[in-house]
């Protein structure tokens, strides 16, 4: 039993030894790693079981739980994750009470500077925000454009049969009723992604409420959690709200098709959401900042097929704080999860990183997760 575990670990770690063979042995000669490693020698081929703890965002929790569970049976690494919210996840990483954090909202430059250590943002999966509505008489999906969405949530566009909405939806009859806006009342990554989109596409929104996990919504009711928003929209004819796309799909809620940069109306389906990530990353390749910083926003992504309200969710790792062994174990896990087990994400309704993007993220993460000595 032990033998198979060791072999398995060796195979995994062997897979990533190409870039920096023997990196683990730098532990003794390399500069301070800050924390003593559970492995002692720092040899990644160790047969000692490594325990890693993480905490943060609730959105990827079901996926992380599955991934960590399956990975524990595959490698000799046990990863424990608690879903306590993005904000709390960031706080815990900075306080060094966990080995990694998870967030739907990237840390700001100021937060990173205040943390006083290298903190990597590693995208693990793509999320998206769907716009759901309650229009009983509607026979086909509602079409919306960026300016109309912004004006509805700003309270400037108040009737369903407004000329601008009618122009977007020529083949359906929209009711002559008030638009009832529902937003999230609790601070959430979903609100951040949605307000990030509104800030990007609407100067009026940017000058007004702005982007954040909780913003001062000009109109509407607040629902607690995705279920709170969904519940209120379901019950109020004429309501419109936004929620996390996995939740919308699992509950078979009607979702609007949104006009993207290219002028096409796209639905929040896995392919369209993944395309947004691919097109943004492609644009970044030429950008030198992308070499170490993956805190990119996917909203209003270019590309004919891109769904415009998408976002990464990130794992936060401070390699210098947790030491070489744990860093490399996390690197190995990321390779296993993102390159070989993206289908676990798909079966749970998440959108895995597109193959090319995943390869890029894994290579970069492994390079950054090796000890600093490897990067003079």
């Amino acid at each position, binding site marked *: 039993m032990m033998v198979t575990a060791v072999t398995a670990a060796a195979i995994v770690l062997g897979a990533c030894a190409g870039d920096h063979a023997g990196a683990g042995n730098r532990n003794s000669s390399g500069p301070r790693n800050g924390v003593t490693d559970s492995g002692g020698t720092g040899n990644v081929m160790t047969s000692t079981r490594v325990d890693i703890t993480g905490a943060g965002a609730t959105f990827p929790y079901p996926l992380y739980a599955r991934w960590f569970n399956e990975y524990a049976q595959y490698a000799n690494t046990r990863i424990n994750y608690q879903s*306590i*919210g*993005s*904000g*709390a996840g*960031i*706080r815990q990483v900075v306080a060094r009470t966990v080995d990694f954090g998870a967030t739907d909202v990237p840390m700001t430059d100021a*937060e990173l500077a205040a943390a006083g250590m290298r903190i990597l943002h590693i995208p693990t999966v793509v999320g998206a925000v769907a716009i759901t509505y309650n229009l009983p008489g509607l026979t086909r999906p509602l079409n919306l454009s960026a300016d109309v969405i912004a004006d509805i949530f700003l309270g400037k566009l108040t009737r369903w049969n407004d000329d601008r909405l009618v122009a977007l939806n020529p083949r359906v009859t929209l009711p002559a009723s*008030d638009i*009832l806006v529902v937003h999230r*009342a*609790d*601070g*959430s*990554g979903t609100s951040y992604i949605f307000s990030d989109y509104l800030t990007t596409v609407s100067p009026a929104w940017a000058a007004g*409420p*702005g*982007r*954040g*996990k*909780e*913003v*001062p919504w000009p109109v*509407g*009711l*607040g*629902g*607690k959690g995705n279920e*709170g928003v969904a*519940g*209120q929209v379901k*019950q*109020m004819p004429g309501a419109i709200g936004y929620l996390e796309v996995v939740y919308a799909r699992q509950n078979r809620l009607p979702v609007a098709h949104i006009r993207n940069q290219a002028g096409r109306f796209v639905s929040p389906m896995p392919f369209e959401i993944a395309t947004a990530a691919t097109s943004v990353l492609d644009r970044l390749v030429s950008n030198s900042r992308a070499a170490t910083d993956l805190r990119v926003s996917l909203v209003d992504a270019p590309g004919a097929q891109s769904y415009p309200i998408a976002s990464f969710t990130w794992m936060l790792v401070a390699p210098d704080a947790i030491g070489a062994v744990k860093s490399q174990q996390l690197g190995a896990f990321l390779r296993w999860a993102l390159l070989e087990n993206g289908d676990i994400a798909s079966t749970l309704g998440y959108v895995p990183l597109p193959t090319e993007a995943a390869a890029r993220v894994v290579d970069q993460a492994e390079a950054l997760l090796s000890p600093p000595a490897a990067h003079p």
Partner: protein
Amino acid sequence: MPSRTADRIYQATITICAAAIPAVLALLAIVLFAGAWPTLSSAIGPLLTQSTWDVPQHRFGAAPLIVGTLVSSAFALAIAAPLGIGVALLATEIAPRALREPLAFLVNLLAAIPSVVYGLWGIFVLVPLLRRSIMPWSMAHLGWMPGFSGPAYGPSLLAAALILAIMVLPYIASVSRDVILAVPRAQREAALALGATRWEMIRDAVLPAARTGLFGGIILGLGRALGETMAVTMVIGNRHTIPDSLFAPAYTMAAMLANEFAEASDPLHLSALMAVALLLLTVTLLVNLLARLLVARVAREDTATDGLPMPPGVAP
């Protein structure tokens, strides 16, 4: 072991146990105060008077929360206090003997229901009922009065007050029942012997004697109502504005704290949340203190008159 030593040990243990309660409260207040200090020292005025809650811009005005908390609790008590005392009277004086115990038990069951279940019931039963029938009817017939104007969303101050009323009802009812039962039998019999009807007996002999305790039950209910979080946030609409109508969505301090605390990472935002928590603690303490003073006054009057009201026109 000599009994004196045992007594000492016992006394010390009891003292420690008793001191632990105020110590926890003090610690809570200290932690909240320390956390809230950045807000208290620089932005306490806006916190109490402004209505804008803008996290990205660091503008924190909690006036709508204070109003929402006080108004929803006040309405809840206005509904629950007469109901609770009525239920208690029914279960002690009026109902057939065989039904009294089951009735009291059923009312107490209300206290055993988790608040999230109340919230769900509110979302699926109460709120649709309000939106479809009660609100439109009230607007049509009472719309001329302030506080009954639309639009009828459903989630509203009224929905929260009704849910709170149901939630605090068992507390008021069970305390009231206990104090009514504690009224001496002799007093009831004396009233009846003087030719009082059952209602006159309750009005003149039972309720005045139980006044202090009834008040205590209502205050206990108020304490529950002020701090209730989950059920309220599910039906109140969570809108950060001062409500101009019973049908308008509103927000309470407890609901806002529950919603925003988990995801707050900005130091100023955290500090503002701590300040609101401190405010909630202060309001709760003040309400309780005020109630105690009133109860003490009522109790003094009671002892002065032996628990019986003076006949009208007779100076005490």
